[in-house]
């Protein structure tokens, strides 16, 4: 499989703080790559840096054979990267319908068909079509955020902690949706819930103190008790 995204020795400062101190990994087309690590390791900043929200100070980010580390966020998004932030980024005073409408870059037949598809994927959104985003439950907000990122034809989806704060039954639904999405797009997932990550992920990258520690196949990590204990505090 071809490499869709390559992050090469990326450093990022937020204010005076040196958050990413050499993150490198690759995401192959059609796979789910999971970024793992403790709280504060730099996983969320890595996704934000790919999106240009906290631009890289140095290093290279190549997406679809184009260098994107200097591009503005909107350009990166229109280039084919969808983003589901940790806080879901729902526009609370807009309805579900309006949230999706803001996200849809074209409103042609293909886009509307895609909207229908995401509504089949997340039937709750159809049910609460005219409800304000701010009045949805945590799980519904997560679904709306994912639907919004998926409603355009993105080659890559960045999903930040989709299970955070959700009830186990909702996590199951979110997992099912991600499994469905991975049939159509490449996904980079940040996830603290290792059970969920190990079920969905094809590859992993361990990040610790803003640096890549190790990358590899998820099935290898599942069997590596020492690595899990040392960097994830489990096992």
């Amino acid at each position, binding site marked *: 499989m071809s490499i869709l995204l390559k992050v090469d020795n990326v450093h990022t400062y937020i204010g005076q703080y040196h958050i990413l101190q050499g993150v490198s990994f690759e995401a192959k087309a059609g796979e789910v790559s999971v970024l793992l690590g403790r709280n504060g390791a730099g996983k969320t900043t890595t996704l934000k840096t790919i999106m240009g929200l906290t631009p890289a100070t140095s290093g290279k980010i190549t997406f679809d054979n184009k260098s994107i580390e200097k591009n503005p966020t909107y350009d990166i998004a229109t280039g084919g990267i969808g983003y589901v932030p940790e806080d879901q980024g729902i526009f609370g005073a*807009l309805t579900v319908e309006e949230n999706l409408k803001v996200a849809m870059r074209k409103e042609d037949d293909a886009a509307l068909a895609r909207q229908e598809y995401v509504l089949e994927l997340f039937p709750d959104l159809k049910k609460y079509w005219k409800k304000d985003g701010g009045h949805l439950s945590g799980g519904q907000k997560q679904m709306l955020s994912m639907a919004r990122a998926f409603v355009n034809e993105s080659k890559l989806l960045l999903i930040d902690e989709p299970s955070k704060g959700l009830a186990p039954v909702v996590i199951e639904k979110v997992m099912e949706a991600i499994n469905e999405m991975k049939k159509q797009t490449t996904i980079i997932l940040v996830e603290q819930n290792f059970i969920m990550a190990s079920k969905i992920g094809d590859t992993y990258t361990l990040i610790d103190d803003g640096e890549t520690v190790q990358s590899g196949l998820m099935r290898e990590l599942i069997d590596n008790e020492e690595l899990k204990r040392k960097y994830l505090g489990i096992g």
Partner: protein
Amino acid sequence: MELLINLLINGLATGMLIFLLAAGLTLIFGLMDVLNFAHGGLFAWGAFSGVWFYGLTNSFTLAILGAILTGVVLGFITEKLIIKPVYGNHVQQILITLGFMIVLSEMLKVVFGPNQLAAKTPPLLAGSWEIGDVIIIKYRLFIIIIGFIVFGIFQFILKRTKIGLVVRAGVMNKEMVQALGINIKKVFLYVFMAGAALAALSGVLMAPYSGVIYAEMGMEFAILAFIVVVIGGMGSFPGSLLAAILVGLAGSFMAYYVPALSLAVNMMLMAIVLIFRPQGLFTAKG
């Protein structure tokens, strides 16, 4: 009864003029997080350019269009040269926009002369109707109607169009709007130009209402507009309308019944709202 109706119409007309000025300000602050103290300067330029266009064409419609065009052009220049370099820094925004406000006022004196200018009411809108004992001044009614029409148009744009949705979404979460592939800086520019156009419209409508215009008029009305934005809620269009009407009516009634308090009433209104509802009467954030 007739006195109450007259005070009501006066208050509503003043409120609508303040609303038109505050509407731009609230959008600019709500979406762009920019404290634009030069907004009053755009209002004054609207008044002067409107009077100039009226003198040139003898058409009040062309005067309004000319003033709006002046506002749009000045808005474009102000955003590009003055506001863009200071996004995200409130202190610098206050300093540079206050400075630019003075520049705009002084430029008016350079272009139109240092003296006050008389502003005539167009013949069609001059005079009044008498209904029973109630005297309705035509021009005030015209301002009220224009205010509601502008409110309706902007509400339609904000609620029913894609650009309106983007603006509302941008007020709530700018970062997310960009992550959805929208160039928020371009949206900022459009909103700033629209806000400047509204300020200029308010200025050109104010000219015949007050009869005279002067270079410093911008600062006086900008203060009222800021009070309205605080009362109505930052970024809220309906909030600005309600607050502007409240400020207009309070000013009108207090000036008649308790003249000594007519200047303080706006500050009192703002203080009451800030004590009981610090976020303003409405909120645009989700």
